[in-house]
């Protein structure tokens, strides 16, 4: 029931490029906000909202929709860009990000904007809420899939692991978590701040199914998400699935890539112009 479904890789790549452009354009007037995470996750958001997930931007409350829970709320710009591109709201709102009176709050607020499943910002809480949604779906024998987008940094929060235990206990096979494994957090590389490896082994030890992908390879992303959805929608009582998506933070903007310093700052006018020029060049390449 997806309103817009893009099937060819090049269409999806163009859409991801649009979303990256939106993110830069949104962050520039906002004068604050996060650049790296949103750019790194643009491919996954594109594949999810424009290809795999079942949803309808014209009926955001439709009960049959897949639930997409964003746990790491600070990457809100990629969520807003994607929802706007998908038609949940007027793209004119983009330049109101973080401004007084705007529904594009600094961190997502449920009810402020169609398409936001829950408020987030404090890290480590989304997976628990997604578990609650998945439990409710099971109790009511509903067939939609609950997706939870998480970051690597929030795996330093104890609550994330409480949710991991609960999802495994109840074999929430209708739950698919996707981790933005970009190896950065605010103060530096994750493995310096708080070593997290091996994430895959940890999840397997907690009785989850694990898939590892390159989160910036559109074809690989689409294949993994499609397979995950088919499995999760089967209605089987089975282990929950974690897709560990290795992404490049700042992806698409050379001077932001892999630099943790871009975790939580927006580009200035000069940087934004440079970033947009790079994204235009990338667009031309996709078209060629």
């Amino acid at each position, binding site marked *: 029931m997806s309103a817009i479904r893009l099937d060819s890789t090049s269409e999806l790549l163009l859409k991801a490029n649009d979303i990256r452009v939106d993110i830069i354009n949104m962050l520039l007037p906002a004068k604050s906000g996060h650049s790296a995470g949103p750019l790194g996750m643009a491919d996954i958001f594109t594949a999810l909202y424009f290809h795999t997930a079942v949803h309808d931007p014209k009926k955001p409350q439709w009960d049959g929709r897949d639930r997409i829970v964003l746990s790491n709320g600070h990457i809100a710009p990629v969520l807003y860009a994607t929802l706007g591109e998908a038609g949940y709201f007027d793209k004119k709102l983009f330049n109101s990000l973080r401004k007084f009176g705007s529904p594009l709050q600094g961190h997502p607020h449920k009810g402020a904007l169609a398409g936001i499943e829950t*408020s987030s910002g404090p890290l480590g*809480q989304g997976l*628990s809420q997604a578990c609650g949604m998945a439990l409710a779906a099971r109790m009511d024998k509903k067939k939609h899939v609950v997706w939870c987008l998480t970051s690597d940094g929030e795996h330093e929060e104890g*609550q994330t692991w*409480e*949710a991991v*235990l609960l999802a495994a206990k109840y074999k929430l096979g209708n739950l698919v978590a996707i981790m933005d494994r970009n190896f950065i957090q605010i103060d530096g590389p994750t493995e310096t701040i708080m070593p997290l490896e091996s994430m895959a082994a940890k999840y397997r030890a907690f009785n989850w199914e694990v898939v590892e992908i390159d989160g910036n390879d559109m074809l690989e992303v689409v294949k993994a998400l499609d397979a995950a959805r088919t499995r999760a929608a089967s209605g089987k009582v089975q282990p929950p699935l974690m897709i560990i998506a290795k992404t490049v933070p700042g992806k698409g903007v050379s001077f932001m890539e892999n630099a943790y310093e871009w975790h939580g700052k927006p580009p200035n006018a000069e940087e934004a112009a440079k970033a947009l020029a790079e994204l235009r060049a990338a667009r031309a390449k996709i078209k060629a």
Partner: protein
Amino acid sequence: MKLEANLFAAEMKKVAIRDGWGKALVEIGKENKELVVLTADVSESVRTHWFEKAFPERFVQCGVSEQNMASVAAGLAMEGKTVFFSAYGVFSPGRNWDQVRVNIAYNNLDVKFSGAHAGITVGPDGATHQALEDMAIMRVLPNMCVICPCDEKEAGKAARAAAERKGPVYIRLGREKTPVFTTDSTPFEIGKINVLADGSDVAIVACGVPVFEALKAAKNLAEDGISAAVLDCHTVKPIDKKTLVEFARRCGCVVTAEEHQINGALGGAVCEVLSEECPTPVVRVGMQDKFGESGDGIELLKHFGMDSAAIEKAVKRAIGKK
């Protein structure tokens, strides 16, 4: 107001306040098929085990994870469930305040949760387990309703009223067996004070276990010729301003009594209302900015000055300030 006859008889029936909550959950569960109950490894102590037995398919055992439980509850509520969860007050809402704040209150969800073993009367477990700050940390949250029932019957009514109410509700429950002095016909309306005894010299505004202590105090004070009104202010938020102001005007002084720190909960709320609407001397009975310690619950209530004798003393001080 209809209360039990022979209020102060030694043979007054005593039941734990938490039992009222636990029994009500089963009743609500029969009518409301959307009711889901969660617990964090303390189902018997918080009396959710009766619901678990009756409706295992609608019970979620979260293990020792109060933060996770609050957020799972939010997820269920976002899918249209009426969600009740329970754990010890010190940990829930003590440990999961941020989850309650953002996932439940900010999203304004139908989640009703109880903090059990609240107050000093939990006794022997000592200070770590005596929730004496829970109402204060819940009362400051927008959208949150805070209720502190005075006996087992009122706890049942509070649970039913909470299920009917839109939005989040926090209910604090004591563990100790205490007199059941209200009856099935004693009214209960969220946000409305129950005037248990009328009076003209002082208004004693109480919630929870100290309500009964206030009734005892009023009886003793009457022998000294002091006419004390006793107000059961079970809803600490939204507080019944109208009745508070009416009695402050009539009596000219007020005593608050609660099994909680004197700062931030009932005592604080009454002072806020009266200083804005009708400046009146107030003396607050409660925990005097201290941590508790081990002991028998009733002994501790006396030691830390939250029993009827402490209320009587406070009344005399309050009258002296008029």
